[in-house]
């Protein structure tokens, strides 16, 4: 009898274990399903493949553990006996036998156990038990296997439609799932970094540092700029951190390193907007003034604006004493009271102390507003200069006791003598570092170029290219400009060119020699006449009566070669874009990111090419793809047309007989 009792206990224990395993399997399957859901959520938040695997594993393990504990607590022998009785009634013998088993001395125990065992032997195990278990385990394994090794491809179809399109060839198994950029503006603008995510275009200030974060399960990420510079960057933890070189402007293509082409990649167009220099202008009085006597101060209002922030606004003035080319210049600055409307909008008021400057008749005060922003090494920006001239006024103005406005067309500001004085002053200074001296000299070079430009304009034309001027020099020598005055003026401008070149190099000594030579030639050209240095009131005319008066040099002229023009630059980019679009049009499975990069390079400033490239990347169905390709084709055609000459309408018309026109013309008086 003892054996029968043991057999009943063993049978109930086995049943309890089976039910425990079954419950635990159910819990595990539920945990796996929940883990998949959590992995999807983690992926949308930027999680990589490893993160998703950990989420799924934790979920499965937790569910399996909880299920096992709960099942072991639930399936006691008594609970198993009750469950068996519920499934198939045994006249309560199984429950009774299990209860009597806890009272081994009970007299009914052997009989009840024997009867219960006979019922248990006829009780078949549940038909679904093994199936349930196998299905559960298989589902769990399949789900875990699907989630852990591969990064949820179905989800990518939402994130990157172009990349998820069925493609021919060998696409990457690990597309770029997310792309974000961290931009660090230059330090002088505060350097506060900001992040952008999933952008296709990015506008940054010049000098900014850009770091891209590309999320992918690929081992490397390949980046290319404008389709030419290609670099591979290794990923770490599913993220590739790419620090772009500065300036980072251009079209960047970020693609998985294992892809044969750009499939699964992202396109980012970065446009660099340089920090513009401030704009400064003198609002009041805003005109030149002529005063009989400098008795009162002059209130000057300066308006300055900058696209980011201003750092300084001042009033700078130069007093000019003397006459002719024997002038004395003195510079000084006046502090201004500043009203800051915004960081980039300042209004300054300053007082020009005319009464204390010791001005005499004929002296001048040249003043201008000066504004600076925080750009390192950038020179301050000056406004247009205005004059205060001390001297006799017209009768009516003098009777009024004040001054009179000067016609803006009669202004004068810079002269060759002033350039010489400034160069001498710079040459004499010993408190400057070499860099500062070079910067000052280069500033003087700009002024020298301005003076030269005035004289070139005075001669009747401008010189766009010194090399071209030199190539044409024999024309001038051979008679065109053979009168002494013109030749001297030409020599003066060339001396100014030499002076400018030496000033750019910081050589003030040689520059002074050239400047003085230029001044000597100017005095020779204009004899004793005093010349205005900015004679915009009356433009000089070439005197036709003095043409062709030069001496003809002996010998024949040198033959000149016939020149041929070259094709417009940038044509290769058009060709590449057209070929890329042709390939994309012929293969409906081809990824459009690479053609988009080719198209984006054609951007001309109106944003059309960038928009077309973005449309290519976004295209996620056949209709959108066709529309994007057509728009991209139009962009390419427009880019090509910009680089070609456009014939005038009717250029191909065959010649009409002019007989009728001639007859009409002969009839007219």
């Amino acid at each position, binding site marked *: 009898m003892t054996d029968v009792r043991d057999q009943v206990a063993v049978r109930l224990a086995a049943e309890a274990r089976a039910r425990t395993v079954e419950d635990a399997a159910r819990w595990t399957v539920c945990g796996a399903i929940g883990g998949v859901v959590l992995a999807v959520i983690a992926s949308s938040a930027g999680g990589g493949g490893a993160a998703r695997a950990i989420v799924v594993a934790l979920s499965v393990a937790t569910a399996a553990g909880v299920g096992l504990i709960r099942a072991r607590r639930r399936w006691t022998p008594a609970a198993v006996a009750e469950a068996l009785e519920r499934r198939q009634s045994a006249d309560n013998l199984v429950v009774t036998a299990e209860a009597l088993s806890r009272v081994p001395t009970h007299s009914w125990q052997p009989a009840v156990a024997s009867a219960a065992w006979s019922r248990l032997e006829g009780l078949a195990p549940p038909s679904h038990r093994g199936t349930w278990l196998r299905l559960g385990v298989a589902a769990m394994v399949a789900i875990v296997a699907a989630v852990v090794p591969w990064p949820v491809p179905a989800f990518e179809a939402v994130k990157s439609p172009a990349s998820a399109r069925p493609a021919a060839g060998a696409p990457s198994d690990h597309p770029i799932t997310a792309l974000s950029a961290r931009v660090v503006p230059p330090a002088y603008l505060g350097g506060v970094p900001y992040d952008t995510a999933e952008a296709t275009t990015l506008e940054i200030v010049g000098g900014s540092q850009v770091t891209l974060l590309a999320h992918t399960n690929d081992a490397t990420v390949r980046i290319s700029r404008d389709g030419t510079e290609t670099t591979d960057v290794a990923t770490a933890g599913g993220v590739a951190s790419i620090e772009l070189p500065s300036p980072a402007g251009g079209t960047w293509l970020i693609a998985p390193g294992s892809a044969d082409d750009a499939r699964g990649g992202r396109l980012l167009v970065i446009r660099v907007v340089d920090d513009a220099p401030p704009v400064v202008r003198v609002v009041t009085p805003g005109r030149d003034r002529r005063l009989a006597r400098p008795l009162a101060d002059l209130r000057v209002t300066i308006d300055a604006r900058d696209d980011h922030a201003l750092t300084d606004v001042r009033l700078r003035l130069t007093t000019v004493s003397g006459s002719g080319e024997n002038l004395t210049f003195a510079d000084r600055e006046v502090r201004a009271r500043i009203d800051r409307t915004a960081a980039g909008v300042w209004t300054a008021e300053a007082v020009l102390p005319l009464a204390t400057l010791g001005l005499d008749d004929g002296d001048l005060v040249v003043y201008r507003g000066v504004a600076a922003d925080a750009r390192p090494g950038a020179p301050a920006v000056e406004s247009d200069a205005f004059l205060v001239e001390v001297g006799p006024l017209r009768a009516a103005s003098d009777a009024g006791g004040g001054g009179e406005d000067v016609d803006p067309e009669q202004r004068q500001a810079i002269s060759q003598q002033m350039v010489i004085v400034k160069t001498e002053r710079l040459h004499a200074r010993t408190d400057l570092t070499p860099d500062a001296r070079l910067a000052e000299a280069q500033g003087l070079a700009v002024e020298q170029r301005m003076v030269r430009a005035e004289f070139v304009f005075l001669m*009747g*034309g401008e010189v766009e290219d010194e090399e071209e001027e030199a190539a044409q020099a*024999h*024309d001038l020598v*051979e*008679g*065109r400009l053979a009168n002494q005055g013109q030749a001297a003026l030409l020599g003066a401008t060339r001396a100014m060119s030499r002076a400018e070149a030496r000033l750019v190099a910081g050589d003030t000594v040689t520059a002074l020699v050239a400047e003085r030579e230029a001044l000597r030639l100017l005095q020779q050209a204009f004899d004793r006449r005093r010349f205005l240095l900015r004679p915009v009131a009356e*433009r000089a005319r070439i005197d*036709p009566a003095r*043409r*062709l008066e*030069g001496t*003809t*040099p002996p010998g024949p*002229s040198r*033959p*000149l*070669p*016939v*020149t*041929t*023009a070259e*094709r*417009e630059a940038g044509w290769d980019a*058009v*060709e590449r874009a*057209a*070929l890329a*679009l*042709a390939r994309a*049009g*012929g293969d409906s499975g081809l990824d459009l990111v690479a053609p988009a990069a080719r198209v984006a390079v054609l951007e001309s400033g109106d944003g059309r090419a960038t928009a077309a490239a973005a449309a290519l990347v976004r295209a996620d169905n056949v209709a959108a793809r*066709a529309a994007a390709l*057509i728009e991209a*084709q*139009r962009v390419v*055609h427009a880019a*090509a*047309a910009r680089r*070609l*000459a*456009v*014939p*005038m309408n*009717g*250029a*191909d*018309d*065959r*010649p*009409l*007989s*002019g*007989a*009728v*026109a*001639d007859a*009409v*013309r002969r009839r*007219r008086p």
Partner: protein
Amino acid sequence: VTRALRAAAWAIALAAVIDPGFDRSVAPPAIVGVRVATARPSAAADAVIQRLDEALRPRATVVRDVATDGPWCAGVDLCLVVGDGTATVSGPPGQPVHVVGLAPPAAAQLIAADVPARHQAELHEARVTVAGGRAGEVVEIVAEDDGVEVGRIAHTRTDRAIDEGIRLPWWPHRTGVRLLTVRLGDTPPAISATAPADTAAAPLDVLVWEARPSWTGTFVRRALEADPRLVVRAASQVAPRRVVARGVAGRPRDSDLNAARAVVVTGATALDAAGAERLARLASAGGAVVVALDGRPPAMLQTLLPGPLAAERRALDPVALGDRLRSAELVSFSRIPGDVVLASWADAPRGDDAVVVERRSGRGAIVVSGALDAWRWRDDEGGFDRFWQDVVVRAARASLPPLAATWEAAAGSPRVRVESREGAATGQWPALTVTARCGDATTAIDVVEGNLPGTWFAAPRGVVAGCTIAAAAGDAHVETTWPGEASLPLTAPAPDALATLARVSGGTQIDAGAAVEAVAALLAAQPPRPPVPIRWHPMRARWWFVPFVACLAVEWWRRRRFGRA
């Protein structure tokens, strides 16, 4: 009876050996000649022809595409043209032509494309003709070169039967002779056709003659030198006996002027009367003369001007002359019918605003610019340069070349066009030799070689790879390259070409729905064709064997019946 049957059989056998002949007269069926005039194969036209053929048989025979060496439809009784207005028929008809008009095609069709040769550095342009479809329908016209899309426009169909001369800009993907594919729409079935395109037109030879140095001359010359479509030779008279020249030996001679497609003259106020007369003669002979004035023109330049001066402006501030040119000092001319104003002064008195004028003179043209100081007001976008480049290219292309031979791939009859300025001016053709070689270097075929009888001659069809044509007269030598054929007509039919054809030939217009009745009525109205005498040989028909065998069989049966065999 038995003997009679036997005799009949013998008689038939004897007749078969003798083969007798008899004369008789027969009225032949009328011949209806039909030509189809549709740009594309038309099922509607085929249906009309089949209906006619079935309804008119045996009274008439319908013959399609009657081809003769002389006038077409010459040997038929009734001449029909079945067309929908998208194509016409060439050559003079031999008799009245009755036109069976079909409804225009329901879908838009591409029926012609003309692609003039251009230089590789400029935007090309195809002239496309489209028919069919409905008014207001937007048609995408696309140009492709070797699979690469090179041009696209969206054209809205007008309510006219044919939209011709639609300008399709396209850019040269490759240099040389190309076979441009033009198609409508992007979705299949795409309607496409090919047209030859020469993207490597030779640069135009331009001579810049500075009669005296001037900034106008300098900047105009620089603008032209920067244009790859032009090869600029220049001569600058810097002193009375001093000339600085590029590409010419010295002061331009008549041969230098004649060799250029266009002559640009600056500093013209220094010209003498003889020099102005030389330029006027050059223009009259077919050349192009462009005069860029930089001062008030003296009286001796009157022969070059489009007319007397109408207004003069001298100021410090410039005015706009169109969207590319500005000038503070200018002279303007009165508008004369026939002149083409290339730049005008908007604020000028009415009718006196023509500043840059193209005037036809003889076989050529003279362009005069009264923008005296436009060089001072050049903008940063190169408008001054582009204006002068376009003016000179336009004038040079419109001028008669000194000597040129071009291949025109007209549909069905490729031909060579030879132009000579000297021939046009004097009416005396020089002794020219023209050689055309088609195909590649290894399979070249001499198509034509010999003295040129006139300005045109036909070349055979067949070779499409490309032809090189050379015409030579003395030292002159001209070459061009062009494909032999195009699958698309280069010239579009006039919208009412078929109606005009019916009217001028004495024919009628027939509605397609009543074609059978109308054609039957026309045939009935035709005078009966005279009977044709023919000789009849009855024994040459196979049927004589039937009575022969029947006679023999019955004769044998009767003998068996009556016991004789």
